[in-house]
């Protein structure tokens, strides 16, 4: 049974707008709303929370239409950047403040012993020892846990996260993200997570909604968005490095040739008509480099050609290599691989790409 449903939500708010946004969530699913700044993702979240009245559409939480209800009656938890803990109250006071009339309502599973019990909540999130501290003296990880404990104290039906990690460094970000994921899995409540970082989507999402100028561009699993973007925008946004223009040829069996640059590559997408202009999306990690001398047969993929190294950019464990040849491609290697192959600028290298790695989008 669908737990959360957003139907045809439309709203115009100055420069921000939402246009007919629809999505549904079950049980403990996490939806990540992905989009660039100005795409309306925060507005969407705030509308679900109850801070904007939509011009059209409905919001249903557990089957109840909450579209006309004020925020305090929607049973929705809202977590923001820096977690929004009340600075003038201690951790315990923060949590207690949220213990309202619904606090003791029945909950299932892991949450039932916690209902209405501030001490139990603090203990569940491992922050009991911080009860008397003020938020100013907590680490980001501690703040996140306290924010979740407080949110749970109000006994919500839905969690909303508005880019809570955006002010943090990448290491802290990763830790907090993992922490959050395991906590959300345990709690088993639906959550909507808004971000502009596609790696958040990969880690957290059961479903992803890509938003652009208030319109839904693609809805699906993280894999769908990542590997099968519906258009060039989504592709770029989910980090596809290579988006090349090409022209399809006539399909032969389950292979479709695509002319890209000076080469014809084989794709597995017979549904595209022949002679059509397409955008070919190839993720950087799908472009394999081979040491001509030592490569095993099994390593080669269908589309093979030779290219030369135009540029090498080291980015820690990963190296980005820009290739010139029949077409310009970016690929990524692990640093040890680079060292083994002894690649440098101008080196000639063998490239192969699997047919399945080519994703075609109509131009």
């Amino acid at each position, binding site marked *: 049974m669908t737990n959360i449903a957003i139907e045809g939500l439309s709203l115009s708010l100055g420069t921000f707008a939402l246009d007919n946004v629809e999505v549904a969530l079950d049980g403990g699913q996490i939806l990540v709303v992905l989009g660039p700044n100005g795409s309306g993702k925060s507005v969407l979240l*705030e509308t679900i*929370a*109850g*801070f904007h009245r939509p011009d059209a559409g409905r919001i249903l939480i557990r089957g109840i239409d909450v579209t006309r209800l*004020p*925020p*305090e009656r*929607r049973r*929705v*938890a*809202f977590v*923001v950047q820096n977690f*929004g803990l*009340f*600075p*003038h109250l201690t951790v315990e006071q923060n949590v207690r*403040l*949220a213990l*309202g*009339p*619904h606090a003791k309502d029945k909950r299932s599973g892991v949450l039932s012993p916690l209902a209405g019990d501030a001490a139990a909540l603090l203990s569940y999130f491992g922050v009991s020892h911080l009860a008397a501290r*003020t938020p*100013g003296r907590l680490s980001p990880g501690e703040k996140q846990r306290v924010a979740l404990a*407080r*949110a749970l*104290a*109000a006994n*919500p039906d839905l969690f*909303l996260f508005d880019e809570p990690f955006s002010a943090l460094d990448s290491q802290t970000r990763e830790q907090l993200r993992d922490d959050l994921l395991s906590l959300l899995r345990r709690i088993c409540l639906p959550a909507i997570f808004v971000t502009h970082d596609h790696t958040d989507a990969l880690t957290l999402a059961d479903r992803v909604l890509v938003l652009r100028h208030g319109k839904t561009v693609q809805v699906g699993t993280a894999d769908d968005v990542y590997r099968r973007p519906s258009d060039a925008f989504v592709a770029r946004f989910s980090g596809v490095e290579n988006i090349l223009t090409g022209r399809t040829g006539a399909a032969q069996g389950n292979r479709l040739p695509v002319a890209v640059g000076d080469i014809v590559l084989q794709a597995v997408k017979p549904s595209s008509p022949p002679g059509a202009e397409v955008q070919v999306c190839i993720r950087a990690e799908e472009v394999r480099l081979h040491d001509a001398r030592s490569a095993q047969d099994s390593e080669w993929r269908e589309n093979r050609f030779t290219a030369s190294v135009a540029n090498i950019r080291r980015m820690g464990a990963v190296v980005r290599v820009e290739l010139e040849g029949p077409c310009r491609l970016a690929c990524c290697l692990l640093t040890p691989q680079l060292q083994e192959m002894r690649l440098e600028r101008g080196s000639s290298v063998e490239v192969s790409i699997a047919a399945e790695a080519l994703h075609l989008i109509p131009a």
Partner: protein
Amino acid sequence: MANRAQHGWWRSAAPSHPTTVFLLLWLLGSLLLAFVLIPLLVLAGTPSLSGLIDAARMPDVRDSILLSLEAACLSAILTALFGVPLAYVLARTRFVGRGIISAIVDLPLAVPHTVAGIALLMVFGRQGILGEPLQALAGLKFWGTLAGVVVAMMFVSAPYTVNAARVGFEGVDLQLEKIARTLGLGPWRTFWKITLPLARRGIFTGMMLTFARSISEFGAVVILVYYPKTAPVEIYELFLRVNLQQAVAAAVLLLAVSLGLFVLLRFVAHNPDLRESR
């Protein structure tokens, strides 16, 4: 806190500014400080200790100081009661006349005090549009009463509370209010538990300024009320009736009491753990 550099006993909050710039700023600031401090010190140094004790012994002087404190206190409280909600509305909402309302709030600062007094007399006097019904219905009189003193004080000092409280509210992160709502707090509880405490500093500063300004008001008060005498009126009368020395002695007494009170209030209200959310 992390970006406060420590240079021995002198902590600078802006270590990025070279010392010469900071010294120049200090110099300019010191001139203003001296400008305020020197006349006050000269005034304070004028009466002898026995003169001060004599002034403190005079029941008229003591009564006038107590009346000033009492009336200024009421003025600050009543101004806060009505001014803080106005400040909140001005801080949080956008509406067409907002700029005009802000300007109106500041107007009393530009009105000459005697004129303000006469305007208040027109409204709150025996035949005034508010004075007449209030006297008939509630027996409330403003001519020659404590109420009149408070009303005159409020008129001239209200802008301070509204403006400072407004700045206080503007400094409260709207996100926190939104979060409170989602946690189940209605708009009223959110205001009481979240917004108001976080705006405390601004509100308190405003009330202090209103209180201080109220104590010193003379021109507007004296139109409505001469007896009972507030401290400024008593000091003025001492100058006329007796001599400058006595007037100055009473004035220094008033300043000493006021100073002591301000220091005490600031000390009580200052909470080092309070950090406003940004």
